[in-house]
């Protein structure tokens, strides 16, 4: 068996750029063994609402999605924020054929979130002690980070200050 020859290969690129008026354009392109697809969204800043969307989708097995444009337009006005995935799925549909394009809309939105995250992270200091205080403050400011991943898990160094404050303030 030719086990050094791939059965399946996938390549996904998501990029975000600022466009006129300060809005963000986020593009997700997918090429894999079966699929050639693209979703482009424009997000209105600072409201972070999807204000334009387009895309194409071709799958070797399914062909194109006939009502793709209608499905994409359904998410116009949705805000890029926590809880958006449920809304996007609900508006676009959840059938198997639609799942990849829904995922690509979501990836575009994540690209926007990561673009803004990157801006915040650029302010992080380079030395270890500085990093600890930077990220300890981040979790204090945004409690939803607490216990949501290994780096901010209960009882770990970056949440120590937060937990100490909680213990004092609570009871």
């Amino acid at each position, binding site marked *: 068996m030719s086990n050094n020859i791939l059965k399946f290969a996938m390549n996904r690129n998501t990029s*975000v750029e600022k466009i006129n008026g300060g809005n963000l354009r986020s593009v997700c392109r997918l090429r894999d063994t079966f699929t050639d697809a693209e979703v482009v969204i424009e997000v209105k800043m600072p409201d972070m609402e999807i204000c334009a969307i387009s895309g194409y989708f071709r799958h070797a097995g399914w062909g194109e999605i006939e009502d793709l444009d209608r499905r994409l337009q359904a998410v116009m006005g949705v805000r890029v924020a926590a809880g958006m995935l449920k809304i996007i799925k609900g508006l676009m549909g959840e059938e198997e054929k639609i799942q990849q394009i829904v995922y690509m809309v979501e990836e575009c939105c994540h690209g926007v979130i990561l673009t803004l995250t990157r801006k915040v992270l650029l302010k992080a200091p380079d030395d270890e002690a500085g990093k600890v205080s930077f990220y300890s403050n981040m979790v204090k400011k945004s409690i939803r980070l607490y216990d949501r991943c290994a780096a901010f898990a209960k009882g770990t160094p970056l949440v120590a200050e937060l937990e100490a404050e909680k213990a004092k303030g609570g009871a």
Partner: protein
Amino acid sequence: MFDFMRNKVVDVARLDRETLEVHGILDDSIYSLELCFKVNISDLICSGVKGRWLRWTTPECPRAIDFLHEAEGFCLKAGIDNKIHKTIGRKSCRHFANLFIECGHAVRETVKLLNWEAAQKENPEITFKQFMRNDETASMAESSPGMDNEKKELSSPSGTNKPSPKKTEHKRNAGSLGNPSAKKGKFVIDMHVHTSPASPCASDSVDAMIQEARRIGLQGICLTDHNYVWSAEAVQALSEKHDFLVLRANEIITEQGDILTFGFYENLQGITRLADLKKKVADVGGFIVAAHPFRGFLTFGADDVGLTPDSAMARELFKWVDGVETLNGKVTETENNMARDVANGLGLPSTGGSDAHDISTVGVYATAFDEVIDSEASLLAALKQGKYHPVVFR
């Protein structure tokens, strides 16, 4: 120029008759990481999950690697994504979860290819398109009819799309309700409470939530389980059982975010357009409140994107709602402050609620009413009169 770029590469090779080998790379402006594991072709069970970081952010991110083994034994069939988010995403890192989900998709696509190759042995002429069409019809026949019907059929949904008759609404003697140590003679209700199993994301039962609310001295709670309608009878029984005011409300997902509804008991599923919801609720004389309208992101705030109360006031959402939740227990202070400033700017009344999903946070925030509330009707009347304000309670 691009401000952010993320590249993901996933490949799948067939190691032997039984096994696929999966390799994924995620490399973006912030993170760089890799995953590698094996999958048993017949049951899609994965094993030998290994990963490594090349670039990360916090000094503690390396811990994420220790939790990748949580994915050991996962069956990568469709629908596994949520479980990946909840285990790998929460215990390890959301970016490893993101890559793992890509890998799972690649595995399922590869299996389609393998199945087509198998089908070609019997019918060398069959094209991939034809194979997929047959496969689709086969799987449609497999899925049991009526699967939709079992959604959310818990103990007491009203099910039918009819508002519950007014006559079943319970009146209670307010004098006997709740805790006498009520703050400043106000009537304090937590307007936003989730219970399990009605809200899949909640972890404590309705009885536990009510007991805790009573214990900490609230005068009442509103059950706002996501897109779930309690029956008037069930809620009255709970009120009597606990000698505590329990009222029905709802939290409905719209394209503009979550909306709390009061005095509206239609069982809506999926995503409802806010304009439609407003009309439906107005038709039955109900009241709608924008829940946590500025709930945003983990790593940056409204201030970081330059959102100001003035610009936020123009949002479509605020044209439809009757009130704004300006103290919500699940968002940051900045996000609550933004909601408060917008509500004040627009002259919309403000409510407060914990958004508790377990007993530890019931009543962190609540709404203080000037008058006694003893029924859903009196709550609705008070909401419309505007004689209340959000309070930090716990």
